[in-house]
């Protein structure tokens, strides 16, 4: 069974002309960048958290007013309690417990569960929306470079127009018009975030076409298809990988920001929504604002470290 | 030796990199006399450029450091004088001209700006006098319409003109010593001839003392008075140019001379010195040249040769002469 898997991988990499030695080379270069490795480790942890976490945590939607506003384990806060019978306001001490290691929010929902399910949302949005943007951008960019002429002109004018729209403002407008469905949000982010990729892939394709190794390959009699697959694509792929890794944080933040201002999907507990709620209870439950923010921050940081490391690893001029 | 104006003694400049220590200059001795053109000769990587850079301490200082030796000039030891003293010497008493004039000039400043900047730094002239001086210099260098050229940017000039501008800049404050780092290497043959003419002129009209760095023995033969042959960061032979050409003692020097294409010989392959320049991170033990030397002996592989005096002006470091 393992052998069959190996066979499949081998054949796929042959078809895609994947060069395992080259991949290993790049991996070695990346490994030397400690921050990039740390970033990768965190991302792996996050993915694991998102996939299997929900099976181990409490139900994030279960509200329990008895246990509202509990601090994380090990912290102690004071809450004011209004006693209806005696019409008095007293304060009582509330201790964090390990049942709710990250505390609870104002409705008594478990923070850890919400953070974990938020991880799922962020990663899904991150991967899918980035995927859409990258694919769209690459198609437009490469096609534009390859076809040239008025097609190139028209596509680039269109890209220029879309690029002028401030990313977030355009996103807000689209979601306002079309609605706050998570699917829409993902689609909208993908459809507005492709412009950078288009520009970069186009300029890379244009420069590759005239590079000496392509001319040399053609002079040796290589067919167009061979030139594209064995020479152009491997060079563009590394660029795409870097762009993708560095785009994911922007996408995750965009979704979080949308949720933060209330345009997110209300059915879903995104980190942005948690943060928004936390904003209003800074006095009583500061952890509700701190925790999702830390997660967002670390996630973005991890992808930035990794993307930067990959970019240096792929760049032949950087001495690693 | 009372007309020696610069004396380099046992200079050692090492570069401490993450991949090891590069001993770019590992014990170089020579002296420069007034009015002469001294050539530093050798293949790329032999340390001649770093030697020149060391005189004014212009190499990048985190990796590079002068670890030993002295450079005596005007009563100072340039290897450890203060940076303020060094700054006053740079561009004024000792000037340096680099190869590849395209990248040696600042692309976003005008030619005039770059020359005047240096003049005003060292000489007490006001702006318009400095401007006049700069234009005179450009004209002396054979640059036509100097006034227009002053307002040009480097990319608007041809390669030959740029090199002349660099030389003009070097001469702008009447330095005592001019160091030229391969000024003829990156240019084509006609410009090379013009530039060599300029250097010949400098010697006769200004009695300028020059240190001329090159790998091209033909250039050495044309304008040099004396030559120092460098290999592996050390000087291996020092002699007047006529001696070097006609009576080379070190096998490397003879090898270099044989490499010069001789148009009178119509048959045969071009001669070359077998092997490649040594890896600066892993120099051979003993004499650095021994792996490529046709006359290598047993002693050459484990002992460094000491200096042998052949005649008053001719020194060699080789086990063949002891």
């Amino acid at each position, binding site marked *: 069974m393992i052998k069959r898997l190996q066979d499949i991988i081998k054949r796929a990499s042959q078809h895609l002309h994947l060069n395992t030695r080259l991949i290993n080379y790049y991996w070695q270069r990346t490994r030397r960048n400690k921050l990039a490795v740390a970033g990768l480790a965190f991302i792996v942890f996050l993915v694991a958290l998102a996939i299997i976490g929900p099976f181990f945590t409490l139900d994030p939607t279960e509200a329990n007013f008895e246990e509202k506003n509990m601090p994380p384990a090990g912290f102690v806060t004071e809450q004011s309690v209004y006693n209806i019978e005696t019409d008095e306001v007293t304060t009582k001490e509330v201790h964090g417990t390990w049942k709710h290691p990250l505390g609870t929010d104002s409705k008594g929902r478990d923070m850890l569960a919400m953070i974990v399910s938020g991880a799922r949302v962020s990663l899904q949005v991150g991967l899918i929306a980035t995927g859409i943007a990258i694919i769209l951008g690459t198609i437009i960019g490469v096609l534009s470079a390859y076809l040239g002429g008025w097609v190139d002109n028209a596509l680039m004018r269109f890209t220029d127009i879309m690029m002028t729209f*401030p990313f977030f*403002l355009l996103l807000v407008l689209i979601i306002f018009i079309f609605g706050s469905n998570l699917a829409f949000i993902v689609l909208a982010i993908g459809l507005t975030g492709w412009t950078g990729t288009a520009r970069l892939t186009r300029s890379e394709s244009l420069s590759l076409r005239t590079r000496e190794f392509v001319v040399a390959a053609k002079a040796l009699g290589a067919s167009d298809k061979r030139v594209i697959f064995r020479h152009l694509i491997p060079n563009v792929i590394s660029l795409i990988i870097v762009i993708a890794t560095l785009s994911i944080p922007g996408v995750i933040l965009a979704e979080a920001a949308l949720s933060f*201002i209330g345009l997110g999907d209300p059915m879903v507990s995104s980190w942005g929504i948690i*943060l928004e709620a936390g904003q209003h209870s800074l006095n009583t439950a500061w952890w509700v*604002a701190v925790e999702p923010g830390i997660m967002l921050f670390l996630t973005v*940081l991890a992808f930035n470290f990794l993307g930067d490391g990959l970019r240096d690893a792929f760049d032949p001029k950087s001495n690693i | 030796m009372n007309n020696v104006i610069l004396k380099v003694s046992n200079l050692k400049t090492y570069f401490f990199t993450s991949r090891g220590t590069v001993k770019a200059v590992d014990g170089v001795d020579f002296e420069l006399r007034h009015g002469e053109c001294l050539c530093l000769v050798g293949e790329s990587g032999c340390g001649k450029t770093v030697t020149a850079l060391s005189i004014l301490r*212009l190499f990048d200082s985190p990796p590079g450091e002068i670890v030993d030796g002295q450079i005596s000039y005007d009563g100072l030891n340039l290897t450890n004088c203060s940076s303020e003293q060094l700054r006053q010497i740079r*561009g004024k008493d000792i000037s340096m001209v680099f190869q590849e004039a395209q*990248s040696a000039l600042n692309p976003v400043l005008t030619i005039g700006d770059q020359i005047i*900047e240096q003049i005003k730094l060292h000489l007490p002239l006001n702006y318009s006098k400095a401007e006049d001086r700069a234009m005179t210099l450009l004209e002396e260098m054979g640059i036509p319409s100097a006034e227009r050229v002053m307002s040009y940017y480097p990319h608007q000039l041809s390669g030959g003109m740029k090199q002349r501008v660099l030389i003009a800049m070097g001469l702008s404050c009447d330095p005592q010593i001019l160091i030229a780092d391969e000024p003829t290497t990156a240019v084509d043959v006609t410009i090379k001839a013009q530039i060599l003419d300029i250097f010949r002129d400098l010697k006769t009209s200004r009695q300028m003392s020059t240190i001329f760095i090159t790998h091209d023995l033909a250039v050495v033969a044309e304008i040099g008075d004396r030559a120092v042959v460098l290999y592996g960061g050390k000087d291996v032979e020092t002699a007047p140019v006529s001696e070097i050409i006609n009576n080379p003692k070190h096998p490397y020097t003879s090898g270099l001379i044989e490499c010069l294409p001789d148009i009178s010989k119509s048959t045969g392959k071009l001669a070359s010195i077998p092997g490649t320049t040594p890896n600066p991170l892993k120099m051979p033990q003993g004499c650095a040249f021994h792996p490529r030397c046709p006359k290598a002996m047993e002693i050459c592989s484990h002992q460094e040769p000491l200096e042998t005096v052949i005649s008053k002006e001719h020194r060699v470091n080789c086990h063949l002469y002891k």
Partner: protein
Amino acid sequence: MEKSWLRDYIIKRLLYAVIIAWGILTITFIMVRVGPSSPADKYLANLAARGQDVAEVRAAIEARYGLDQPIYEQYIDYMGNLFQGNWGWSFSTSMPVIELIKTHWIYSFQLILLSSLFAAFLGILIGIYSAVKQYTKTDYAFTFFSFVGISIPNFWLGVMLILIFSVKLGLFKTYYDTTLPLFSLDNLKALVLPVITLGTGMLAGYVRYTRSAMLDNLRKAFVTTARAKGLPERTVIGKHVFRNALLPLITIIMFDLGSIVFGGAYLTEIIFGIPGLGQISFNAIFANDYPVVVAVTLIGTFMVLLVNLVTDITYTYLDPRIRYD
């Protein structure tokens, strides 16, 4: 000869900007028309919520806004209106949209300007220092902090600053007061945290770009030439290296404006209650006040267009290599 070349370029660039502007307006129009809920629907939703009769009003609106006309006529009307300054009516605030914009844009401008100055000034200095001291601990520290700076979600930073300074420490509790002059002490105090919030991301970007532009130039041959001339190190760095680094820096910074700054300003205004365009757009979203949301988006986009135009022309004017080719 040089002057007319520049003039030709400016004209060409302006024409191009006009084309882009047309494209922006057209795409916005398409989005509005294609959307499932039209401006009319949103307005009617408001009315319905207040218990009014919807059917009659719908007919009146459609007649008034020409929503029953064929699409190309609507398009012409749309363009015409925009040029005449009729940007619609904001029913949540009962005034013409253009009035709303005129009264509020200055606060956004102030916030963005102050944040940019803060970020640019500090960022460029740190970037230069970091590049000159490459491989030292200080450089590593600054580089690390610039990573942190661009990774921190700026809306979270705002909330954290409020938590730390206003809630826990009791500082900077003033709110922005539009009745006071723009640069009054109270208002400036109220702007400290917002400027830090918006500025930090920009600052980190400036540091990175400046550092990288400086590093690109520090190893170049002309730097050695400058030193060989005897110039003091601060002149070598400040005049020779920096001038070369400045040109690409300007373009990168300006072009970043649209993608990062405006989105950041939007969120910052909301968090700190600054009455700028972001704030009124936010309010409009929840009041279903369609025209305002569209208008703010368009204003932001045109600002980006303008900045790109100015930067492009400035860069072309400044770079001697382009000028004389």
